[in-house]
């Protein structure tokens, strides 16, 4: 039996129809039943989850329940949950136990959420298919044999399969939005700096953001609202008030009236799977039917985003992953030599091929003689990409496009081709490079039943407008597809 949505469950808990313990047991049982097929979870924490559920029931009986009291959530395994393994899906951290909670996790706990386990992902967040994991690939529960997308594939699969009410992922180049698109769920990456990165195992520090994943816009809005806010322990966390996103997510289709929507000409037509192109155009027509003003815009540097992202992300990753030397934590080789030899051997043994590939590219691009030709150019291209959005948002309120040019591809289809895999992120990376908030919401299925995601981008710190528009679209879509999960 699938776990209800966050909102449905909160209502049932408030009405006393179910206790947090009962809901948590149901979620854990469902996760244990389906995990052998999906491999969505690396760790399930029955004891910890039940303890938290008992506390939530106690708090509710005494009138002190937090806003998420008793809601079972899953957490991507590159975020620290104190006392639980944090493997980042890597052999390097296979035995690492988190000594503290990530700030985002601590805020969910403080709100009474029940954390049932840690979900699989691409190793250190590096990948778009959840096939780069030392713990095996995650499977898409909606379409057999297909990737759930990555790198937050485990969280997406867990949500789509109803193993939890919601989940937390991370998004560096699309890793919340792409899996949401591939699994027919909702994924929100907030503006860079909205949610603290303390306790997020770093991949690319100027791009990484924590993001919520769930089955409805209201749910992701609520989770984001709880996690967001300044953290004095993260110097990149911004000091801005957090809007009431769950309130913004109450919008119906009528809220679209007068909303100016820009559709980048670079994101429809040639190179897009016909079913994706058609579904997005149908969605745009429907929104126009409710009074949105839809116009074609241009993001002329879209075609350069993956190249810029590849250089910047791998350079930052090569620096961030230098800490894994097998000395203070992580894998140390069983064949040690001198210090340098031990470090080099430990790293080569424990990192998977995609991680090694990215470290090598990043190190090469940063090395003397190469920096100006690669990194500096990529950072300047990043400026042009940002300027594209500044110009577009002077004219429109929202940018709408497909989340991906394709639906979920078969497992094994792209993991031997690093370039093809990188191009999976062609429509998501610009958002990270610019630091914008973006959301993926379902907008249809292809002839094989594979979900199609509609991506909306808003100006910096305009998450309220973003979730409002996403909720409006969701209401239209659900009215048209009442049979969909």
């Amino acid at each position, binding site marked *: 039996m699938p776990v209800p949505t966050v909102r449905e469950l909160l209502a049932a808990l408030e009405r006393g129809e179910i206790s947090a313990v009962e809901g948590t047991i149901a979620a854990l049982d469902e996760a244990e039943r389906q995990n052998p097929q999906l491999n969505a979870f690396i760790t399930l924490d029955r004891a910890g989850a039940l303890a938290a559920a008992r506390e939530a029931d106690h708090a509710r009986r005494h009138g002190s329940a937090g806003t998420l009291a008793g809601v079972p959530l899953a957490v991507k395994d590159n975020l620290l949950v104190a006392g639980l393994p944090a493997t980042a899906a890597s052999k390097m951290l296979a035995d690492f136990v988190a000594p503290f909670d990530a700030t985002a996790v601590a805020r969910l706990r403080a709100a009474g959420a029940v954390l049932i386990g840690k979900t699989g992902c691409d190793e250190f967040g590096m990948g778009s298919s959840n096939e780069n994991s030392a713990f095996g690939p995650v499977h898409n529960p909606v379409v057999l044999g297909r990737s759930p997308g990555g790198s937050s594939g485990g969280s997406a699969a867990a949500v789509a399969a109803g193993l939890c009410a919601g989940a937390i992922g991370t998004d560096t180049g699309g890793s919340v939005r792409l899996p949401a698109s591939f699994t027919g769920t909702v994924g929100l990456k907030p503006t860079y700096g909205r949610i603290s990165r303390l306790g997020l195992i770093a991949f690319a520090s100027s791009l990484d953001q924590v993001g919520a994943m769930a089955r409805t816009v209201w749910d992701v809005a609520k989770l984001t609202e709880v996690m967001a806010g300044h953290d004095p322990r993260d110097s990149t966390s911004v000091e801005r008030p957090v809007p009431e996103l769950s309130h913004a997510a109450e919008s119906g289709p009528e809220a679209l009236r007068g909303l100016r929507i820009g559709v980048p000409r670079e994101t429809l037509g040639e190179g897009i799977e016909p079913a994706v192109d058609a579904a997005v155009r149908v969605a745009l027509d429907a929104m126009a039917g409710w009074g949105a003003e839809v116009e074609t815009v241009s993001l002329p540097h879209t075609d350069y985003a993956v190249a810029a992202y590849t*250089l910047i992300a791998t350079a930052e990753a090569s620096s961030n992953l230098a800490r894994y030397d097998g000395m203070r934590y992580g894998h140390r080789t069983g064949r040690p*030599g001198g210090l340098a*030899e031990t470090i080099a051997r430990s790293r080569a043994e424990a990192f998977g091929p995609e991680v090694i590939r990215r470290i090598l590219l990043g190190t090469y691009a940063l090395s003397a003689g190469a920096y100006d030709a690669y990194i500096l150019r990529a950072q300047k291209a990043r400026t042009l990409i940002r300027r594209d959005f500044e110009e577009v948002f002077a004219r429109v309120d929202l940018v709408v496009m497909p989340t991906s040019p394709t639906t979920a591809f078969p497992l094994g289809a792209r993991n031997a081709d690093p370039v093809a895999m990188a191009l999976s992120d062609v429509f998501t990376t610009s958002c990270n*490079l610019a630091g914008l908030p973006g959301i993926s919401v379902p907008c249809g299925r292809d002839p094989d039943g594979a979900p199609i995601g509609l991506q909306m981008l808003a100006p910096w710190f305009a998450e309220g407008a973003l979730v409002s528009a996403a909720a409006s679209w969701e209401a239209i879509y659900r009215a048209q597809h009442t049979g969909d999960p």
Partner: protein
Amino acid sequence: MSPRDPIDTPSVTEADVRRVALLAHLELDDEAVQRAVSDLRQLLTLVAKLDALDLTDVEPTIHPVPLSAPTRHDKVVPTLSRAELLANAPHSAGGLLLAPRAVDGGN
């Protein structure tokens, strides 16, 4: 920074990969080096797309939000204990991390 002359498949060599692997502290066997040569060439071909851009007078974006170096009062606050910090260490004894020798026979 004007567009550069387009380059064909970047000429990454085995020597380049071995040099970069040394910088990155990665011990790669010969097979891994060959794979890396091929991978890097493919990826550098992908990123060579940026050569077509005219970046004259464009400032680099290093970070999406303005960075600052916030300070706090110099006050001792509770943190993790030594035991907690060493709990994940591969080798420790007497409250200290143990590591291979770096001198006298080390690299």
